[in-house]
């Protein structure tokens, strides 16, 4: 279970969980779950286009995820955010449908892009993923304070000269960066589940940002590791375990948060 190819799986999955935990915290805080769903899912159209042109699929994924981030941020300036995301997303998928219909033999690859091939990670894929993960976490660390401020208190941030629009674009680009490398390995579906479930659970347990980020990363790691073991034993897809565990952790987090609030009310009353 810890040899050869499986070792690659463990390293990659750990890196992906850390990236997902950190970016997911901000996605949940900013209310960008829809973008977190749309960018990885829509980027798969880019891989289809790249394979049509005979390019490296990573190039297509990167191009489409960045285009998606720009589209969401650009349209979102004038329209409502969820509408901008929905329209960018359907446009990307529409193009994806076109590319796939041209290339005919792509359907099988589409499945693996949506649901991932985490057990078939090649050795030369591990380093780029870890490097990219480090880069996106470094980017978030650099803009941590303004990003935090503009996510939690947009008006105060604007007053202090932090442009909400620019922060939105920067965050979406980091998400696109994190996405383009991880999607072929873990799948668009898994990336989304890992970003939202653990971060949402962490947020309902603690309100302090650093603690919540740490907790989100921790939950994401536990989710992925449990998922890998379970998937290795049962042969069922990893995406299933990660998706369901994310939901379970969220419910636990909500129950814990609600319980603690009730306790606080009781102590205040006593």
């Amino acid at each position, binding site marked *: 279970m810890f040899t050869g190819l499986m070792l690659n799986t463990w390293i990659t999955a750990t890196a992906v969980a850390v990236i997902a935990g950190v970016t997911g915290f901000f996605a*949940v805080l900013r*209310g*960008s*779950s*829809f973008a*977190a*769903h749309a960018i990885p899912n829509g980027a798969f159209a880019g891989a289809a286009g790249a394979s049509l042109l005979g390019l490296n699929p990573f190039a297509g994924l990167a191009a489409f995820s960045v285009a998606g981030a720009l589209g969401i941020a650009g349209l*979102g*300036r*004038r*329209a*409502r*955010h*969820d*509408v901008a*995301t*929905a*329209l960018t*997303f*359907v*446009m990307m*998928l*529409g*193009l994806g*449908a*076109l590319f*796939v*219909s*041209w290339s*005919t033999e792509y*359907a*099988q690859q*589409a*499945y693996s892009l*949506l*649901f991932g091939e985490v057990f078939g990670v090649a050795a030369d894929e591990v380093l780029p993923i870890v490097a990219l993960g480090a880069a996106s976490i470094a980017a978030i660390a650099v803009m941590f304070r303004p990003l935090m401020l503009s996510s939690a208190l*947009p008006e105060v941030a604007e007053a202090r000269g932090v442009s909400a629009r620019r922060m939105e674009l920067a965050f979406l680009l980091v998400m696109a960066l994190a996405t383009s490398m991880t999607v072929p390995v873990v799948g668009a*579906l898994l990336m*989304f*589940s890992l970003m*939202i*479930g653990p971060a*949402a659970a962490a*947020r309902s347990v603690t309100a302090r940002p650093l603690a919540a980020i740490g907790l989100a990363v921790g939950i994401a790691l536990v989710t992925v590791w449990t998922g890998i073991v379970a998937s290795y034993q049962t042969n*069922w*897809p*990893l*995406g*299933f*375990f*990660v*998706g*369901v565990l*994310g*939901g379970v952790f*969220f419910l636990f987090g*909500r129950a814990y948060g609600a319980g603690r609030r009730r306790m606080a009310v009781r102590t205040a009353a006593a």
Partner: protein
Amino acid sequence: MLKYLFEPGFFSSGPVHTAVGVGAVVAITSAVVGVFTVTRGQSFAGHSLSDIATTGGSAAFLAGVNQFWGYLAFGAGAAAFMEMTGVQRRRGRDVATGVVLGSALGLAALFLYLGTLRSSTTGASFTILFGSVFVLTPSTVPALIASALLALAVALLLARMLLLSSLSPDIAAARGVPVRAVGAAYLMALGVSVALSAMVIGAVLSTALLIGPAATALRVTKGPVRAVAVAAAIGVAATWLGIVLAYDSYYWPPARHGWPVSFFVVTLIVGGYLLTYAHPRWRRPARRDEPDPEHACSPA
């Protein structure tokens, strides 16, 4: 002129007739429900429900039940679940939707995997996602129309209360509108209509028809009634034009087996939306923190 627009055989083809009829029904229902969806800021829920409904489709496939029931059960069930996990509050809405969607997609992965174990249908995930109006089974058409009418009836019955509670939940509550119950009923209607349209035209096109025409209409009109009418017209026009183009594209390069309908319809819808930015009168920027969309859509 017309000869160049419509390839020979367009008007005598059976699948085209069904596609044109069903496409119009779905486009109108989506547009009406979509105006409320956009006003309430629930695009993400609208899209998620269509994705989740497709999970129901693969579950039904596994269980050997008619897919129709799978779509319907998962669409309505997911709507109820979202309602319970807090979709009614603006702040928690997006996360609750995301968590429900994530879990459902996990289930989809499992069902599709188990499905491929049983039969070698690797293309299933693809068809489920993208669908096609040209390969409808005629037996689902009456059920589709019935569910479309149901969703339309709910949306129209609740229209006034829905608009008021979308624009200002506090005023609505003060006036005695059961905000939560109205929201729940509406979400169920959304679940049913989206599930059925996802089954017929695929999850992508279902989202496009729900959000695109409604968002465009809300930009160019004032007042909900006109917005609904314009949205329905845009939706039907885009769908029909998309079908015509897809039919024409049969001999187009490079593959020579037709371009997908969803590509044409999505492009037309998004293109139409972008056009509203070109006209100076419609180019008023919307502030994101306003409770209402582009133009105030006041309850008339």
